C-alpha cells in the first residue's frame, strides 16, 4: 500500500519534469534493466522485490540512465588505469594475468560464494590476487581504489540477474546472515527487517526507505560523492541504529551480504548505481 502511494507520488513528479525516463522502468544506455521481480520462496515476507532505484527521485534516477551523467564512471575510469598499473614484488598488474576485464562478466551476481569452506566476497578475490600473485599490499575494504576496482569488475555483469548459491556449503552462512538480518541490535533495538522489510516505501526523516537491496553496489552516493562498498553501507546502517558495527570484511558482514544478495535474487545487477 505504502509503495502504491509512492508510485503515485512519482507519477505526479514526473509530469512536471522533462525526463524522458519512465520512473518505473530503468534503462541504462538504452539497455533495459529489471528493477522489479516476484520474490523467490526463501524470501518469506515479501511478495515483490524492488531495486533501490525505484525509491529515488526522478533527478537521481536519471543520473543512472546515462553513463556520462553517472558520476561513478569517473571512478570506473580510474580503475581501468589501476588495472594496468604494475605493483608489488612480482612486477605484475591485474592485466598481466587477466588480459581483459570483460572476462569477469557474470562474476558479480554469483558473489559472495563459498571457496574451500570459507565465504569470499569480491574484495577478498581482489586482495588474494594482490597479495598472492602480485606480491603487493592488500587494499582496505572500502577505500577508493578497492571500490573503484569492484565497480569496474561489477560493471561487466550489469544487467545480469543476481543469483547467489544458498544451498549446500553456503547454507550455514546463509542461515547466519538471516539470523543477523532479523536480530535486533543497538540502543534503538532495531533489526534490518524493521526498516527494509516492514517499512520500505515509507519516509524515514526526509528519505524513502528501500528494501535494502545490494544489486547496485558499489554505489555512488550523492551524500558523500564517492563509491560506497556494501560493508561500508552496513556499517552506516548499524551506526544509525546506534549499534557497534561489525568489522568490514568480517564473517558477520559477509554472511549478511550473502543473505541480502539472495533477497535480491532475479534483480538486475546495476553496478555502479547512483543513490542518495
Amino acid at each position, binding site marked *: 500500500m505504502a509503495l502504491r502511494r509512492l508510485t503515485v507520488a512519482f507519477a505526479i513528479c514526473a509530469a512536471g519534469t522533462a525526463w524522458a525516463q519512465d520512473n518505473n522502468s530503468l534503462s541504462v544506455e538504452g539497455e533495459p534493466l529489471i528493477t522489479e521481480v516476484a520474490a523467490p520462496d526463501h524470501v518469506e515476507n515479501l511478495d515483490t522485490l524492488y531495486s533501490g532505484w525505484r525509491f529515488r527521485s526522478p533527478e537521481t534516477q536519471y543520473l543512472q540512465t546515462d553513463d*556520462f*551523467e553517472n*558520476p561513478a564512471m*569517473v571512478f570506473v*575510469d*580510474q580503475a581501468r*588505469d589501476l588495472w594496468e598499473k604494475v605493483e608489488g614484488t612480482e612486477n605484475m598488474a591485474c592485466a598481466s594475468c587477466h588480459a581483459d576485464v570483460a572476462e569477469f562478466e557474470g562474476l558479480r551476481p554469483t558473489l559472495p560464494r563459498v571457496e574451500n569452506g570459507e565465504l569470499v566476497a569480491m574484495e577478498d578475490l581482489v586482495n588474494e590476487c594482490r597479495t598472492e600473485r602480485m606480491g603487493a599490499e592488500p587494499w582496505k575494504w572500502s577505500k577508493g581504489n578497492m571500490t573503484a576496482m569492484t565497480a569496474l569488475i561489477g560493471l561487466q555483469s550489469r544487467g545480469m540477474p543476481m543469483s547467489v548459491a544458498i544451498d549446500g556449503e553456503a547454507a550455514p552462512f546463509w542461515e547466519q546472515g538471516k539470523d543477523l538480518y532479523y536480530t535486533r541490535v543497538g540502543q534503538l533495538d532495531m533489526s534490518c527487517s524493521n526498516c527494509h522489510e516492514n517499512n520500505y516505501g515509507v519516509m524515514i526523516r526526509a528519505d524513502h526507505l528501500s528494501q535494502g537491496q545490494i544489486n547496485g553496489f558499489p554505489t555512488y552516493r550523492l551524500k558523500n*560523492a564517492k563509491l560506497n562498498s556494501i560493508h561500508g553501507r552496513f556499517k552506516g546502517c548499524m551506526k544509525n541504529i546506534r549499534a557497534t558495527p561489525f568489522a568490514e570484511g568480517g564473517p558477520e558482514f559477509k554472511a549478511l551480504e550473502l543473505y541480502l544478495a539472495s533477497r535480491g535474487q532475479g534483480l538486475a545487477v546495476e553496478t555502479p548505481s547512483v543513490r542518495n
Partner: protein
Amino acid sequence: MASGVKPRVKVPKKAAAGDTITIKTLISHKMESGQRKDDDGNIIPRSIIHRFTADFNGENVIDVAMEPAISTNPYFQFEAVVPETGEFTFTWYDDDGDVYEEKKSITVT
C-alpha cells in the same frame, strides 16, 4: 601533471545543418582550492583548472574562467549551433601549466 586527470566529452556524431546540439564535458580533477590545510597545518597549494574553452573549426564557442570555489571534477553542459561538418576542440588549462585537449568530430547532413 596533476594525477588522475582525464577529460571526457559527449558530442553527437551527426546533426542536421543549423541544429542546436547539446555538448557535455567532464574532466576529473581534484580542484584543490588552496584554502585547505594538511594534517600539519600547512596550506595545501592551490591546483585547479582555471580555464576551459571549446572551439569549432577554429572559431570559439565558449570560454570559461574558473575560480577556486568550483568543486572537484568540473562538469559543463552547453549548446552550440553547427553550420557544417567539422571538429570540436576542447581545452582545459591547469594551474601547473598543463593543457589537456580533446577533439570530437561531427558530421552535418
